[in-house]
């Protein structure tokens, strides 16, 4: 149900320059040649975009709606797309779609991204890690356990973790997608891994 998405309140991290298209958007959307180029460029990333949506929204149906909306917006802005690479560009659009979804979810237990302070937990969790060898223990967890633990991470940390560990984006690419400096990406990633490690050991 595409109609339920509210436009994102903030400019996308990677500009889509919608207003600057030479052609009226609707006329351009009807061009089959353009649609073919869009399909070739954007559809191979569908699984990646869907994976990110699943981790950001933690709901299969919401993720499907968000991905569909993301592709509609991407097609609309395809004329003004000049790079960076297609995948980070789609991620940035998806992220804006998901932020609009957060705004809609008044009852969400997760706060929107900018409401979580970077130093949310003053005590570095990883200082309390026991000295036992963890290697054997970590290998035992199956994918569904790890997914659950990742999904339990607070929003900005989960997002950074997924972009790095699952989509293997570089720090620079992550910074572009989330619209934050590389230094912030680094500290979020360090926190994300520390929190995941604690949760991991708590499971044990």
């Amino acid at each position, binding site marked *: 149900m595409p109609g339920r998405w509210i436009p994102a309140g903030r400019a996308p991290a990677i500009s889509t320059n919608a207003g600057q298209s030479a052609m009226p958007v609707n006329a351009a959307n009807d061009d089959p040649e353009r649609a073919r180029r869009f399909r070739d460029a954007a559809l191979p990333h569908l699984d990646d975009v869907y*994976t990110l949506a699943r981790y950001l929204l933690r709901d299969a149906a919401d993720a499907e709606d968000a991905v569909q909306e993301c592709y509609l917006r991407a097609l609309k802005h395809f004329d003004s797309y000049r790079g960076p690479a297609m995948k980070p560009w789609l991620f940035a659009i998806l992220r804006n779609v998901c932020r609009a979804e957060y705004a809609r979810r008044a009852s969400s237990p997760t706060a929107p991204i900018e409401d979580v302070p970077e130093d949310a937990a003053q005590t570095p969790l990883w200082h309390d890690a026991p000295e036992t060898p963890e290697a054997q223990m970590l290998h035992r967890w199956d994918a569904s356990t790890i997914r659950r633990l990742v999904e339990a991470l607070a929003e900005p940390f989960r997002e950074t973790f997924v972009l790095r560990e699952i989509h293997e984006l570089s720090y620079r690419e992550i910074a572009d997608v989330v619209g934050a400096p590389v230094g912030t990406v*680094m500290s979020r990633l360090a926190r994300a891994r520390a929190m995941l490690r604690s949760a*991991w050991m708590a499971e044990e």
Partner: protein
Amino acid sequence: MTCDEAEILLHALIDGELDAGHARAVEEHIAGCPRCAAQLAAYREMSKATASANLRYTAPPALRRRIEASLPQARVPNRRAVLRGFAMGSAVSAIAASGLFAIVVRNDDEARIESEVVSAHLRSLQAGHLTDVISTDQHTVKPWFNGKLDVAPPVVDLTAQGFTLIGGRLDYVDARPIGAIVYRRRAHVINLFVAQTASTERHAAKLDTIQGFNIRRWSERGLNYWAVSDLAADELAEFGDKFETAMRTGTVG
């Protein structure tokens, strides 16, 4: 370096995101700090565990169909468009007589082949299309092309330089078979297309961007090369430089 700094930077070390100077500084700290060394070892193990688990999701087929259906479909050209084509045809014949045509066509050809190369790259990314021969060994990939092409594409192992050889593939560009050698850098695939050319002169590398993909094109010793990837332009340039250097120093399979 303090432990607080090292605790952040050791992640960048694991991810290969530090320059040589910072990497050395972190390693020096870790060498003298058992606690940070234990951290590094634990996070390396955790990264390994997450990397080996399949944490990705696959988009439901219904979603793919819904998105496909929302795109405008190609239509059969109507009569008016066909007539317009005829008018264009005679205009083109008139230009052909002037010699200008050859230049226009050459540039057009280059652009068209680059766009075909990008399409071939995109096709290769679909499930099961990437490689016909899977091997990280250049001495397996190179002989595989024997008899399939009229040219032996050079296969260079660039693993030590951060570009992992993952295999080779026979592809079609410009209606002819073409060799594709496949490399990987992190999650990025690089297709290196190699085709014979009549000219033996060397053309220095040229970088282009089509649909968000970077293309590095160059010619050497009678072969045309197109490296295509969604890697950042500077990393793709680095790939090309490493490849050309390896070719010159003769570490070719």
